[in-house]
């Protein structure tokens, strides 16, 4: 058996080497299919499966809160962590961390960095040896505010401190406070989660300085901000740990019924670099990508199957001779499948290289999330997957041709070669069906991407409800530096008065949330006259005077906010048209009152009605929105965005704004500097990304389908050489020969397009939630894709058809 396998492999390798053109085409087609698929699996592996590079990762677990519905909702409070740490003997160590933005000030100026507050056990539990210096000592995480120390990531140390070894032992300024750097984390380590890459770590007990905007972190059971990591104690398995956590959670629920109703805890292994609560989204995105790359791989397999079917005719004699020499059909199928699998494995190797290149290229794009480098380095599991999917693909595309090639009796097979020129053999039905399938799949992918791109175009063409042109913005968080509400209000006033006097700035304002920035705040609201039944979910933003003027949001009625709408003045609100219609249909809303956030809160008087706009996404349907005066009520977050309308150069205005923020407080790091139009462009990134990805794979599928079509027509040209010769000898014009073969391809294309349209309709209905302003049967998209595919198909058919039309009839007839 092994000898036979070696014999088959040797024969297969020679076969591939002797037909370099065929081998190159097949390997390229398959490598693209396998490579795309492997890249996605590599992403899945790094995100969900690969253990982190820490000591004995198999003994580490996430400990996370679970909602009543059984979904991981994640984080727990510090007080719960303290109870678990002290009460659970199932862990030899339990660590906690909470991420947050921090202001790092160096000689180059202030900068926002991602910091993590970690328990003193964090680095010890992970078994990490610092690159330089040391990790935290147990005594550095005992008393609140006592030990301002920090560990820097290797990447931050390199980028911001030029890899200066003297940084260890020196002081840095974080959130305006001095911290002593005690160590540099190992190279490549940036925490346990993708997308949460930490730049530095400080002890949890320093939270008042590290996360000053969350004062309740250590004292409130409702402040569920900590992610817990445990190391299982010796002789304890995950099941026992889970049971212990369930028991502890029950005790917490009993002891703290006011905050812990339905509280449960779960334990799950640490695999991949996504915390339990983030896994759902990764799985959803990955599944979509896997489906698309799976479709491309399917097309690639159909394509190579078509090529092999074409070759099966060429190899008929060999198959026949082998049968005559005693080969059974099963033995021959095994040999042919060995060759296919060999071809697929070679392609899988090439695909793996393409996958790594593709991932590296994707991760090098500006704005790609940090901490994803692991994705581009496929692990052992990815290699096994690539080999497995390649072998499977080899069987998939090899089976039908092997079955077909060995179906005939030996005598007929041996004679086949002579017959090829003897009579016009029609193309194989299976080959035609494969091409129809490829065209159908690629047209479905192209139509899906076309519908998404059209949706994006429609959404972008609509007015967002404000005028983004000329508006520049910069965000900053006074809360990081410990500013309270009054201090922030004072800072805001001073900043606005300075900005208002800048040359080239015609209007300026501040807001807690700006439209289409990716941040939304929602709450319940009630019209004052109705009872609870009239409540509606609304979104809101706390804004400063000048907001509507700066963004040029039209006010349908009433007025916007002024500095008179401050504390002590009557409490007011501006609602949008949809909210006005929802609460007071057919009535004048100005002067009416509503309550926001709490049915028992003070009523707010509506002073104006702003026109509807887009708040969260370009594809927003009109939704109720309320603007609240920042100066009148506690804002829901400490971050503020300064918006200014520039009359001249936006770049110059931005530079001025940055200087003004620095002038107000040299430790306040400006963040997300840019124009409003840039913000909007970035907001569409996700949709643009998905559409572009689909379009790229659709384009790839189209190219593959055209190669498949070319192959079928080229095969037909070879098979019908004698017929073509006779036709030419009888006076057929070259154009008629071209029409003959193009017509054959056109019939297959038409079949593929019809099937593809049906498939697309089903697909479009499934993704209707992603579409905007375009129906699932959008005629323009269907027509454009069909035209593109049709045109490409005609070119693919025309090339071999032209060759047939230029054939020398004498040579063609002589070849018989």
């Amino acid at each position, binding site marked *: 058996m092994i*000898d*036979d396998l070696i*014999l088959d492999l*040797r*024969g297969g390798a*020679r*076969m591939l080497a*002797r037909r370099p053109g065929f081998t190159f085409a097949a390997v390229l087609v398959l490598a693209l299919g396998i490579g795309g698929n492997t890249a996605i699996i590599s992403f899945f592996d790094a995100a969900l499966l690969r253990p982190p590079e820490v000591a004995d990762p198999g003994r580490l677990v996430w400990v996370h809160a679970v909602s009543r519905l059984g979904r991981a909702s994640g984080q727990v409070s510090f007080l719960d962590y303290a109870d678990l740490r002290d009460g659970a003997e199932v862990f030899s160590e339990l660590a906690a961390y909470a991420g947050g933005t921090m202001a790092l000030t160096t000689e180059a100026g202030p900068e926002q960095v991602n910091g993590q507050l970690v328990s003193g056990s964090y680095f010890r539990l992970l078994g990490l040896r610092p690159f330089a210096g040391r990790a935290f000592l147990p005594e550095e995480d005992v008393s609140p505010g006592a030990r301002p120390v920090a560990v820097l990531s290797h990447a931050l140390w390199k980028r911001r401190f030029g890899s200066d070894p003297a940084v260890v032992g020196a002081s840095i300024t974080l959130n305006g406070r001095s911290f002593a750097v005690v160590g540099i984390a190992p190279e490549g380590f940036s925490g346990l989660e993708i997308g949460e890459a930490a730049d530095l770590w400080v002890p949890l007990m320093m939270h008042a300085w590290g996360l000053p905007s969350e004062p309740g972190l250590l004292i409130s059971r409702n402040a569920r901000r900590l992610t817990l990591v445990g190391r299982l104690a010796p002789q304890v398995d995950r099941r026992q740990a889970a049971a212990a956590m369930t028991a502890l959670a029950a005790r917490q629920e009993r002891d703290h019924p006011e905050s812990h109703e339905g509280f449960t805890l779960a334990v799950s292994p640490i695999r991949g670099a996504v915390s339990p609560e983030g896994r759902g989204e990764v799985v959803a995105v990955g599944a979509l990508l896997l489906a698309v790359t799976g479709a491309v791989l399917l097309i690639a397999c159909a394509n190579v199957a078509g090529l092999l079917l074409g070759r099966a005719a060429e190899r008929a*004699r*060999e198959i*026949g*001779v*082998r*049968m*005559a*020499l*005693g*080969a*059974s*059909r*099963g*033995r021959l199928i095994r040999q042919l499948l060995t060759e296919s699998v060999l071809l697929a494995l070679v392609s899988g190797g090439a695909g793996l290289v393409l996958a790594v290149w593709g991932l590296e290229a994707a991760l090098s794009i500006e704005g790609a999330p940090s901490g994803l480098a692991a994705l581009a380095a496929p692990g052992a599991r990815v290699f096994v997957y690539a080999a497995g999917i390649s072998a499977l693909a080899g069987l998939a595309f090899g089976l039908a041709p092997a079955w077909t090639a060995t179906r005939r*009796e*030996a*005598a*007929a097979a*041996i004679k086949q070669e002579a017959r090829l020129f003897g009579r016009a053999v029609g193309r194989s039905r299976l080959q035609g069906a494969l091409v129809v399938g490829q065209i159908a799949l690629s047209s479905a992918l192209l139509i899906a991407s076309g519908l998404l791109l059209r949706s994006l175009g429609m959404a972008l063409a609509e007015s967002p409800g404000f005028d983004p042109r000329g508006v520049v913005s910069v965000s900053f968080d006074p809360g990081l530096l410990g500013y309270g509400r009054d201090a922030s209000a004072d800072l805001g006033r001073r900043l606005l008065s300075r900005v208002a006097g800048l040359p080239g700035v015609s209007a300026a304002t501040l807001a807690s949330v700006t439209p289409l920035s990716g941040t939304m705040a929602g709450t319940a609201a009630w019209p004052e006259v109705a009872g609870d039944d009239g409540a509606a979910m609304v979104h809101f933003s706390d804004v400063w005077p000048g907001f509507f003027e700066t963004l040029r949001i039209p006010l349908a009625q009433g007025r916007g906010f002024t500095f008179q709408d401050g504390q002590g003045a009557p409490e007011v609100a501006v609602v949008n048209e949809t909210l006005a219609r929802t609460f007071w249909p057919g009535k004048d809303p100005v002067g009416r009152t509503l309550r926001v956030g709490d049915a028992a809160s003070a009523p707010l008087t509506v002073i104006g009605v702003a026109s509807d706009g887009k708040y969260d996404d370009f594809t927003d349907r009109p939704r109720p929105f309320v603007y609240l005066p920042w100066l009148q009520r506690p804002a829901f977050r400490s971050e503020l965005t300064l918006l200014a309308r520039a009359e001249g150069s936006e770049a110059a205005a931005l530079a001025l704004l940055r200087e003004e923020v620095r002038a107000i407080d040299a430790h306040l790091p400006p963040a997300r500097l840019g124009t409003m139009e840039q913000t909007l462009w970035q907001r569409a990134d996700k949709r643009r990304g998905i559409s572009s990805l689909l379009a790229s794979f659709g384009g790839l599928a189209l190219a593959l389908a055209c190669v498949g079509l070319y192959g079928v027509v080229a095969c037909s040209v070879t098979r019908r050489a004698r017929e073509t010769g006779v036709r030419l000898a009888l006076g057929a014009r070259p154009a008629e020969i071209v029409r003959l073969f193009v017509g054959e391809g056109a019939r297959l294309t038409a079949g593929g397009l019809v099937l593809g349209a049906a498939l697309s309709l089903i697909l479009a209905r499934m993704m209707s939630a992603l579409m905007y302003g375009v129906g699932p049967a959008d005629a323009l998209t269907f027509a454009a894709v069909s035209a593109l595919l049709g045109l490409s198909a005609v070119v693919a058919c025309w090339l071999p058809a032209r060759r047939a039309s230029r054939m020398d009839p004498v040579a063609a007839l002589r070849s018989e």
Partner: protein
Amino acid sequence: MTEAIIRLKDVEKHYDTGAGRTYVLRRITLDIQAGDFLTIMGPSGAGKSTLLAILGMLDAAWAGEYEFMGQPVHALGRRQRAELNKNNIGFVFQSYHLLDNLTVAENLEVPLSYKTMKSSQRAALVADALDRFAIVGKKDLYPSQLSGGQQQLVAVARALVGSPRVILADEPTGNLHSAQGKEIMELFGRLNEEGTTIVQVTHSEANAAYGNRIVQLQDGWIASTEAVGGKR
């Protein structure tokens, strides 16, 4: 009297065409004894090669009865026929039909690879055949590097490597010049003397003279059967 190794009774083959049914073979009844050297002759289209393909079990679409070493071939399935073929029959083609991407030694190994046999035994048989046909020096060459005569020699060696009871040869010298053809026919003669049953299809009277019986086909029918003395 020796026992018939091949026994055909009323074997017929036809093709269905638009114009009706076209017969290629009609009521072929023929016994071939073990040790026979039978020649099938006849004009082009008489059904010679078709008859040989049926004898070699390369074709199953026919009617009638065919017994091979007492086994009813007409009642066997495809797999059983392949089994019977690979253990007892060696085929030599007019166009040699060596496998282009295999060396001489590997071509000889192909029929053995379809039998249950240890690789050491396989290697020994290939080495024997290379020796016997004096082609050891060519064992690593590919068919394209050999002359026509050398290729047919390898094809005969390949047909014989598994020690078949019967050799079926379809115009074995058709593509060779006369000296090479003579060499091959003398080889067949020696094999027949050693006990191998041979059935050949040929147009050549000279080649037919190497056998002991000639069957003439005409339009699918057996027109005559005659015994000949043999050149040996």
